[in-house]
């Protein structure tokens, strides 16, 4: 066997600097730059209104729910799938939890059962997708209508208010000046992020989404991983639902409208791809932050409110288009 020229000290040094270069080229880094730029622009243009702590509080309060959902969506996208039901699961969880709270069920139990219901939705999705190989968009499209419909039927469309004070304060209380809900979500995201990058079971998702056939032949538990991915996505939607119920002090079947579309946009901006195998929690979070900043800028700059949705749509198209174009270029090379 030929003796190979393995790396000398010089080569490992070269590798180290290459790593730093690699860091610079990641999606997350570019996003950070863009966010910083937007931040600076807004700070200059609207110094008074933008830089107020109250403004940032408003931005982050608004972001909390999207952050929860986008992390689940990222996981599902990594798995080469999609979850259209997250908004509906959010609403269903909100409704069920509120109903139980009003019915006198202890807070802890209500929350657990609410999350359980969310997980059940995810389990149904995951089961149909992993076991029967039905296309994710069809399955989650079905759950989208069924979950939301159930929520409406249970409440006849009415708000469910008069929730126990203890429950409501959680959504509004602060810890050392930072809203509790933000702390909870950030913690969850950190945990998920660490699991995705450092835990064997979770990181399998990248393999499964990149090339399910090769993953199967490499001994990965493709079905189990897929199943769990969808359960997690719905669970995160459930978490968002409970937090929203607490913050707004009501259960409502109309919560979470268009949440899935915002989540898709943020996730794709954050580096996830519709062809699976790519994406990160950090990227997704940055995507949400960027969109929230742009939104905030829009409002502060007195952009016509009616144009908000149109702009979101255009951003989504551009994000999808650029992503597709980038992938095409990569494939060519």
């Amino acid at each position, binding site marked *: *066997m*030929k003796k190979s020229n393995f790396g000398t000290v010089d080569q490992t040094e070269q590798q180290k600097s290459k790593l730093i270069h690699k860091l610079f080229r990641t999606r997350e880094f570019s996003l950070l730059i863009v966010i910083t730029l937007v931040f600076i622009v807004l700070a200059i243009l609207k110094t008074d209104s933008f830089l107020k702590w109250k403004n940032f509080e408003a931005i982050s309060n608004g972001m909390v729910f999207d952050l929860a959902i986008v992390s689940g969506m990222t996981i599902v996208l990594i798995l080469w799938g999609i979850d259209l039901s997250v908004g509906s699961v959010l609403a269903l969880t909100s409704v069920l939890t509120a109903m139980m709270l009003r019915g006198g069920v202890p807070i802890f139990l209500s929350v657990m059962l609410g999350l359980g219901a969310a997980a059940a939705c995810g389990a149904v999705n995951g089961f149909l997708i992993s076991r029967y190989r039905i296309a994710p968009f069809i399955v989650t499209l079905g759950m989208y209508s069924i979950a939301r419909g159930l929520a409406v039927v249970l409440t006849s469309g009415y708000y469910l208010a008069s929730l126990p004070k203890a429950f409501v304060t959680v959504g509004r209380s602060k810890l050392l000046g930072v809203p509790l809900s933000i702390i909870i979500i950030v913690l969850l995201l950190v945990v998920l992020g660490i699991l995705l990058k*450092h835990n064997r079971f979770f990181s399998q998702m990248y*393999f499964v989404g*990149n090339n399910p056939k090769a993953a199967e*032949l*490499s*001994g990965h538990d493709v079905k189990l991983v897929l199943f769990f991915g969808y359960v997690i996505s719905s669970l995160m939607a459930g978490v968002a639902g409970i937090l929203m119920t607490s913050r707004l002090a009501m259960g409502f079947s109309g919560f979470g409208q268009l949440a899935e579309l915002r989540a898709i946009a943020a996730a794709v901006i954050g580096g996830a791809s519709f062809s699976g195998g790519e994406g990160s929690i950090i990227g997704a979070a940055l995507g949400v932050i960027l969109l929230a900043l742009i939104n905030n800028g829009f409002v502060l700059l007195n952009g016509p409110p009616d144009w908000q949705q149109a702009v979101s749509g255009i951003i989504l198209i551009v994000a999808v288009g650029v992503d597709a174009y980038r992938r095409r270029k990569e494939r060519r090379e």
Partner: protein
Amino acid sequence: MMGKQPILSLEKITKAFASNTVLNEVSMNVYPGSIHAVIGENGAGKSTLMKIIGGIYTKDSGEICIDGKSVTYTSPSQAIAAGISIVHQELSIAENLSVAHNVFCNREPINAFGFIREKELNRKVAAIFLKLGVDIDPKDRTANLSVAQQQLVEIAKAVSQNSRLIIMDEPTSSLSDKEVDYLYSIVDGLKAEGISIIFISHKLNEVFRVSDCISVLRDGNMIGTKETSETDMNEIISMMVGRHIDDLFPPKSTKITDEVIMEVSGYTKHGMFENVNFSLKKGEILGFSGLVGAGRTEVARAIFGADPIDAGELQLHGQKVKIKYPKTAIAKGLCYLTEDRKLLGLFQTTPVKWNIVSASLRNFVSIFGFYKKAKINAQSIEYLKKLDIRPFNDEIQVINLSGGNQQKVLLAKWLSADPKVLIVDEPTRGVDVGAKSQIHNLLRELSEAGIGVIVISSEQPEILGLCDRVLVFCEGKITKDFGNTAVTQEDIMKYASGVSLAENRGEKE
């Protein structure tokens, strides 16, 4: 027949993909009304040649003449216009449409407004079927037809395009004996109409039965064309295989013991392979030889648990095991390196490092399943060194590596899984000479260290040079276990091309 002008004349056709020359100055003449067989081993270039004739690929150099006139075309529709059509191995039938619509795919007779004249369409198709002697209802839905019948629809399509030359790629691969007979009667009928047929086949007995002349391709070169009546199987076989073994292989094993590492009994999957029995001894490299579609990969996948079986037993180190999933196989030390490294073996857009550990993640975790990154890095670097993988960078995506290096990464992946039995499928396909040699030496090292090695290969020199014992597969059965006797390429080809099977069945004249 030889005196007439050829309908198709190929003059020094050359084609290369990237740096790989697939066809090297191939010349061939096809005469009107003749059935012309083109045969050769896997990778000889038959399929590429047909695609060039059919307009799917463009030649790099050389000349194509039809009826003596030089032609150039760049698309299949131009080839069809010139009178040439291909009946592919993978049929392109639209199942939901009627037979007639498939025959006249997008060329149905229409009236002034563009509406299809259904009655005229059915009439025309019925006429073609009548001429061919085919009994299919033009109005029938194609989904209701058997594969053999669908193939006849494709042939009718070629006839409807007024083709004077029809190329058939492995037409009998999915047909039963009776259907094969029927197909050949159709082919004779076409011949009687003055239509020429080129057909690619591996089955020598069929070739001899039906063809007027045989052209042999080997490694992209046209070795020669012979009148079928003036040659015999042995001559054709030696034309197919005759080449020098100029690669240096590692010395054969000195440590073959009688200890049986793996025993396969009665493995059967209907339609794929039947009653496969063999044992793998410690210290030997066992080779699976045979032609594409002979069932070697299917058997390997079944043993590995990637596909289910209808019957069979597996023993590893004397213990009976039931393997239903690749996960189980890997856990028991049985690893399979896939034939297709790009799509099934590697994660192309994932870094080299992660590919290397992708089948052995469990070896690199501590409690609760968290990675020991240092261990992964060390393992990855170790394999980069050991297998001389270039460039020396485990962070880049696998897709950026050359074929040979990708194959080495794939090997590293399976070595990292601590195999006790390693089945490698086409281990050096698309790999440069230097890397080939490294891989061969590595495989020999493994077998000497007591790991069972099975090599599936379509490259005869590799089988003969590397393996201690050779099993030959044909049509899903093991037709010969050569044991430790000296083997020649002709021997292998004989058992690979079904000659022995035909002898068993009693060759029909």
